[in-house]
């Protein structure tokens, strides 16, 4: 374990004990259960892919006046459990909090919206660009380090919020991106930094618009490359009125792959737009369109053969009970220039 990680664990322990010992502490938890199945048809380049997965996500928070603790544990039937987030925050001024620990990278908009809570997201699947790194995603979704977040003064309370994160991300190997562990053997991740600015026109509403910028260094293991230096930038938005919701994001990636023979570079853009309509009955209909430019022959995407450069998805969500949902989804992903079909169904719920 590196000295930095040991120091981080020490600070986490001390702060967590302080929160637990606080006289006015408050705590809360959520337990998300999910069972999902999907079937992607074979194409000329990809074999058929069938998947069944049951998962459990436990989120716990405790807080005192100036300190906050948050953890998110995610367990999947076959892969076992993982500490997705383990973070302690210190509110050192009224409008800003400094977090340390393992958290989701703010440069990936979707990862920080619902995290692993499948019940809260309308659909079954995520856009390909926002897939978690442990599920084959192409952006590092986890960071170990520090994050400063707060609201910029002026205007409506908390109208303009920022998140600035520094830390180390995971590594690249033949399976894709691997997240950094906060407990267990340390991996040789390298420094990363990301910034996100979000504007909320009205407090308490979900409408939001923002921009993000990140710089990642991803060391490679057992590959022909040694390191990827990556710049990620983009914008996102969410708009909701009565029964209609529209949200989307655009990502611009510039990659430098350091190989033994030299450096190869590539850049591409990808984005999505999702529209949702809530009917009077407990049904929500949704459709998502994902598009990319410049992905053909990109050296970084060669490391992720499952990445869908285009995809159209339609689906329906049925809120069968107050905290349970059934979802059905049909998708047409284009992977490596070839189209296939994907069917998915999911049951999810939250307690309490």
């Amino acid at each position, binding site marked *: 374990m590196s000295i930095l990680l040991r120091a981080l664990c020490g600070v986490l322990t001390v702060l967590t004990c302080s929160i637990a010992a606080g006289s*006015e502490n*408050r*705590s*809360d938890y*959520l337990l998300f259960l999910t069972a999902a199945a999907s079937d992607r048809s074979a194409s000329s380049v990809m074999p058929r892919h069938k998947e069944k997965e049951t998962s459990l996500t436990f*989120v716990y*928070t*405790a*807080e005192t*006046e100036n300190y*906050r603790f*948050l953890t*998110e544990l995610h367990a999947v039937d076959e892969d076992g459990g993982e500490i997705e987030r383990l*973070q302690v*925050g210190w509110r050192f001024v*009224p409008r800003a909090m400094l*977090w340390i620990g393992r*958290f989701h990278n703010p440069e990936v908009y979707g990862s*920080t*919206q*619902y*995290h692993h*809570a499948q019940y*809260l997201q309308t659909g079954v699947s995520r856009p390909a660009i926002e897939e978690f790194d442990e599920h084959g995603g192409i952006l590092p979704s986890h960071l170990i380090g520090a994050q400063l977040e707060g609201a910029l003064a002026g205007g409506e*309370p*908390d109208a303009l919020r920022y998140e600035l994160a520094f830390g180390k991300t995971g590594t690249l190997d033949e399976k894709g991106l691997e997240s950094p562990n906060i407990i267990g053997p340390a991996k040789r991740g390298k420094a990363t930094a990301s910034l996100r600015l979000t504007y909320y026109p009205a*407090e*308490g509403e*979900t409408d939001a618009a923002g921009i993000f910028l990140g710089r990642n260094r991803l060391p490679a293991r057992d590959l022909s490359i040694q390191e990827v230096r990556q710049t990620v930038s983009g914008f996102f938005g969410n708009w909701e009125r009565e029964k209609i919701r529209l949200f989307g994001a655009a990502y611009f990636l510039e990659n430098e792959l350091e190989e033994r023979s030299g450096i190869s570079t590539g850049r591409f853009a990808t984005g999505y737009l999702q529209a949702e309509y809530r009917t009077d009955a407990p049904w929500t209909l949704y459709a998502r369109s994902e598009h990319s430019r410049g992905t053909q022959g990109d050296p970084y995407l060669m490391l992720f053969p499952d990445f869908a450069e285009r995809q159209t998805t339609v689906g329906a969500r049925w*809120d069968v009970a*107050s*905290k349970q949902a059934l979802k059905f989804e049909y998708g047409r992903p284009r992977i490596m220039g070839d189209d296939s079909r994907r069917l998915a169904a999911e049951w999810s719920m*939250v307690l309490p």
Partner: protein
Amino acid sequence: MKRRTLLAAIGLLAFLSANGNIQPADTRKLVLVTAETSNVPTLSPEQVRRIYLGAAVNVDSHTVVPLRNNSDPLLREVFLQKVVYLSEPMYERTLMIRLLEGKGARPPAYDNPNELIAALRATPNAVTYLWADTAAATQGIRVVAELWVEGK
């Protein structure tokens, strides 16, 4: 003569009602209350909305602590519709997303009115919402905001 008297009485009643001088006996009023010993000052409905959406509203450097009253479904629905301006599923969803984002615990919810009042008295700077007649009949609490009046 009797008819004239009756018409005059109806006219007077209509005039007084229009001027707000009388209200039907069963007019419902929703109020925000705190413990008598607490420092919470008078709050505006907008501040109450912000507090129940999880925003930190400070009083004398202490944060106001919202308690959810789930003892009466009608009261809860009126509060969410008229003060928070969200349906119950949307409010629950908003609170869950805030928790996931690391913005803190959801306001504690109480199904039992006695436990709610006990928690209100025991928690510094706690607030909750009650029907006005319930608040008037409960000792050791005071009203800090009038949130909604039936018919207004």
